[in-house]
């Protein structure tokens, strides 16, 4: 029921690896880690959701906030490796059409 966030930067690219459940309790933690990265002018941010086992609209809200911030600061955000269950939320809400979501299937896992 908890959330752990790791920073795994690769050169200029800021990578956030999110592990656990994103809900009303943990979403503020994700927001705190993610939004400041998108406020760096021209930054490239990758959010790795492979280990996110649960997410609801509170998580969607964080990504919407971060997306707005990328427009403001000319930065980029890409969501990668999300589970089908999590992707379904983006599809139901129509957010998949405006978010940069990596649709490649991870091999071997």
């Amino acid at each position, binding site marked *: 029921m908890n959330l752990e966030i790791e920073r795994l930067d690769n050169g200029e690219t800021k990578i956030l690896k999110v592990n656990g459940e994103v809900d009303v309790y943990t979403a503020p933690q994700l927001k705190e880690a993610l939004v400041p990265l998108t406020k760096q002018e021209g930054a490239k941010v990758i959010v790795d959701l492979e280990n996110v086992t649960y997410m609801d609209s509170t998580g969607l809200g*964080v990504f919407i906030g971060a997306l*707005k911030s990328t427009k403001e600061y000319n930065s980029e955000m890409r969501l990668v490796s999300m589970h089908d269950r999590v992707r379904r939320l983006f599809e139901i809400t129509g957010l998949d059409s405006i978010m940069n979501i990596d649709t490649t299937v991870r091999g071997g896992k």
Partner: protein
Amino acid sequence: MESFDFIEMKVPAKPEYVGVVRLSISGIASRMGFSYEEIEDLKIAISEAMSNATTHAYDEKDDGEITIGFGLYANRLEIMVADRGGSFDLEEVKAEIGPYENKHSVEELREGGFGLFLIEALMDKVEIKNDYGVIVLMTKYLHENEVDINDDQISTTP
């Protein structure tokens, strides 16, 4: 009269208890024979209802409680989530829900407001009462015809 089992829980209206209730519904729904996918839907729906309730109670006072009732019927699960916090403007909330459409710009996107929309998308029936606090009543049906009669035997085999 239709017989059913009833389970009631009361938790403090604090965000940290939403995950606890999620675990509970997972157990109840699994006990009833819902599929993995359906259980995931139920977890999201109940969390959305509770997120709304915790946010409300927070605004009013932070020592509120949320009452959750589970009605376990032969063909369906009924879930009630009630907070005694202040009521909100239901029409306003309803006007805000719905999927994102491409015609809006990113700047117009709202960070909240998907909660009720998701509940309606994931459950079979949803009713919201807004008289004394907010009560969300939602139903999900068991699709028994898809369940094989041997499922019981299989599930009890170690």
